[in-house]
Every structure is written in C-alpha cells, then in structure tokens.
C-alpha cells in the first residue's frame, strides 16, 4: 500500500483578473477515498474541482496526479511554463469528470457519447470501444437506451449517461461537479444511488455537492470552503456533528432545521444531548452520520 495521495493540491490559487477566487487550497485525496466539497455559492469549490483536471488553469501552487505535476513543467531555471495540451491530457488521463449540466454531445447516440472518449482520444478500436461503452451503460442501468439520443432521456438518465461516459475510460479518480443540482427533486435519487454503488466499489471520488445528507453518509472526508479558502476539513462526523466553526454552523443551520422539522418526535431527549455535549439538533444528526454506504 503506497501512502502517496493519488491526487494532491498544494497551496493552489486562482485569480480572475484582480479577483482571487482560490486562496491557497491544500488537499490530499488517497486512493479509494471519497471527498466532498461543500460551501456557499461562490466559495470556490467548483473552481477548485475544475483545477484538479486543469479545465481551469490554476496560477499558484501545484496539482499532482499520481506523482505528476498537472498543467505545468519546470524549465532549466526552475520557472514554470504551461505544458502542451497533449502533455496535460496525458497527466489527466486517470481523471474523469461528471458535469452539473451533463454536457453530453447531443448529436451522438447514448452509446456514441460513452464510446467517443475511447475512440477519439485513446485510439482503441471501434468494436472494443463499443464493448466497453455497453458495459459502462449496463453499470448505470441504461443499456436499453444505447441507441437513443440524449434529448429523448430524462435529466436523471442523462446524468447517468454522463457517469457511464466517465466510467468507460476506466478512471482512477472521478470528479463530480454538483451532479444532481440540475435535476428535478424526484430524479435526484436515481443518480445518487449510482454514485453510492460506485462508492461501494471503491471508486476514488471528489464531489462538489449541496446534498448534505448524502455527503454526510458517503464521504470519508468533507471539506467546507468559504471565500476561496478551506475553513474546515475532516470526517463527516466532525463537520456535520461536532463543528466549532461558526461559519459552518451557520451554513448547515437551514439543513439541520429542514432535516428535523418534519419529525419533531425524533429529536433526541435531554439525556442524550447531555452525555454527548452536543446541542439537540447536532446530536440528532450525528446518528445519521455513519460509515460509507449506509
């Protein structure tokens, strides 16, 4: 077992003109780990995720994928220069991405969407690509939609195709950018259950999400960001159950309130709260914060 992170961010910063949207992000993602990024809109969590595969060119710090620097190389005088597109593609090869808006290619059938990255970038044969694409579609339960065009699918199905497309390249890390934010509430669960099953298979994932309960259940590590910085990072029990960060308490409050209001009888009794030293809402939530796949 190597203890090297599969994905590592060291003091990563990013500015748009004079606005510094990421202010030194440090993050280690170990193989098999599930990391969720949470935080208010504009906190930089999506930008941080996009820096992890250089869709966003970070301009401070370093991103390492399996021990290789992403996006830049050093010249003889230890100055940083932008890598070629080909080298960047080579370093990010183990990383797949699932997008908030799915970003399927509408002129291709579902099968062609999933096979396209294999055919167009990996230079493998059409038959082999087709076989792998079908297997990936099977994995998300959509092999019967292989010949349909994306526009004929529901949002949840489109996102599952997006996940199949990511799976087909046999990634070692999956980046998921708010994978359920564009979906109707009743379609969210079908996507979450696919992600949950990937987690059970040990897929390494970094996910930006607003699904707090899901993040609490599935994550090994939760990262709370605010104003371009990591405010608190740790196991979900710590962030969702026991945080001492006022800003995080404030951020989570609406979710606590929503989680508790429909079932007021489930509020833990005073004894329970007294023994754990938590406020009642937090004590209630810590019950739901269990291991992966719960």
């Amino acid at each position, binding site marked *: 077992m190597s203890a090297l992170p599969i994905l590592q961010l060291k003091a990563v910063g990013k500015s748009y003109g004079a606005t510094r949207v990421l202010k030194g992000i440090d993050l280690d993602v170990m193989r098999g780990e599930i990391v969720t990024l949470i935080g208010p809109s504009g906190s930089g969590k999506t930008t941080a995720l996009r820096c992890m*595969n250089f*869709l966003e060119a970070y301009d401070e710090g370093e991103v390492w994928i399996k021990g290789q620097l992403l996006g830049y190389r050093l010249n003889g005088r230890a100055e940083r220069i932008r890598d070629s*597109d*080909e080298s960047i*593609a080579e370093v*990010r*090869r183990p990383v*797949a*991405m699932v*997008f908030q*808006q799915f*970003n*399927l*290619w*509408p*002129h*291709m059938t579902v099968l062609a969407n999933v096979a*396209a*990255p294999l055919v*167009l*970038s*990996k230079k493998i044969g059409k038959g082999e690509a087709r076989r792998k694409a079908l297997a990936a579609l099977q994995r998300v339960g959509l092999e019967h939609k292989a010949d*349909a*065009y994306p*526009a*004929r699918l529901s949002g949840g199905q489109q996102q599952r195709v997006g996940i199949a*497309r990511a799976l087909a*390249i046999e990634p070692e890390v999956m980046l998921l950018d708010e994978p359920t934010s564009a979906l109707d509430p009743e379609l969210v669960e079908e996507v979450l259950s696919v992600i949950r099953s990937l987690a059970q298979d040990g897929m390494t994932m970094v996910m930006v999400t607003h699904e707090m309960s899901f993040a609490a259940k599935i994550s090994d590590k939760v990262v709370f960001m605010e104003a371009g910085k990591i405010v608190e990072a740790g196991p979900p029990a710590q962030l969702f159950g026991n945080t001492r960060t006022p800003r995080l308490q404030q951020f989570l409050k609406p979710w606590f309130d929503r989680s508790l209001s429909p079932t007021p009888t489930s509020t833990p009794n005073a004894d329970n709260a007294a023994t754990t030293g938590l406020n009642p809402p937090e004590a209630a939530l810590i019950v739901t914060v269990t291991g992966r796949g719960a």
Partner: protein
Amino acid sequence: MNAFLSMVPRFADAMLVTLEVSLLAAFLGMIGGFALNALRMRFSKALAIPYRTYVWLVRGMPYLSQLVIVYFGLPVLGLTMTAAQATIVSLSIYAAAYFAEIFRAGWASIPHGQIEAARAFGIGRRAAFRAIELPQALAFAVPLLANQVILVIKESAVASIITVPELTMTASDIVASTYTYIGPYAMLIVCYWLLTQAVALIAARASALIPFLQKTS
C-alpha cells in the same frame, strides 16, 4: 399566348446562366466563408481584426459597387475578366463574408460545456473539431445557408448591368424590344421563384435527414 410561349426558350437559357453563376458563387463563397471562420477560430489573436474588417467592408458596401470594382477596377491592374467571370469572383467574395458569419453563428450555438467535456476526456482539438463541433455547427447552419444561397441567386440579377445574359437581363431585353411588361416580368418572377424554391426544398430535405434534429425518435 404565342408571344408568351415564344419567350420560354430564352428564359430557359437565361435560367441556366443564372443557375451557373449563382450556384458557383454560392459554392465558392461557402467554402471561402467556412475557411475564413475556421482560420479565425484557429488564429483568433492574429486574425480577429482582419476578419472583422473584411466582413465590415463587404457587408457595408452594395454588391453593385463590388462588382464594378472587380469588372472595371481590376483591368486597370492588368487583370481582365469576362462579365460572367467577374460576377462569379465578386459574388463569391461578397457571399463569403455572409457565409463566414453563418458558420461563426453555427459554432457559437454549441454550448461551451460540450467543448469542456471533450477536453476533460482527453479529446484533442482536431478530433473535437471534426467529431463534436462540425456536425452540430453544420446542422445548425443548414437553414441559414439555404437562406444565403437564395439571396445569392437573387443578387446575381445585378450582373445584368454588365450584360451577363442571365434572367434579369433577358427580361429587360424582351421588355425593350416588345414594349410589353407584364409577360416578361411575370416570367422572370416565376423563374426566380422556381430556383429559390428548389433551394428551400433541398435544405428542408437535408434537415429532415439529420437524425439528432428530429423531435420524434
């Protein structure tokens, strides 16, 4: 009635001239416009201003003035052309600006997320252009291209001024020699209408053949 029928062979010949001149110009203009837009995208820094200038000049000037420059201006520089050649050259240059803008719109219609997805999945620039951008941009462009081809066909009427024996000149000739207006101009309208409807019909058929544009599967 006899007089009317006697015009048919002349109009048939003229229609072939209009068809030849305008379709050749539309074809060359389309290729030129596609190339202009592709170069603009590939070398966006260097070519942004030359591209805008070209479009600005060509769209800002009446086609007649461009035809005059090519037919009467270029011989001064030692480049002499027949009237039909001058029409094809100037009409191609004129149409290329419009076609380039149509292709630009075609590419602008593709959501950026799709290009990002291609990049995130390691699909190179060329492969993305060919397999992801091109089919969608062309599908988007089909009705606009047809529209522009129709405009080129009708704009070719200006060539009558430099005596290209196309439809409009033929109609004018018949009017001048017979002093009848209604017959020749009615014939003229019918001829242009046939040509433009043929283009519209072909474009509609082409759109119907693009599977991902269909509303029902």
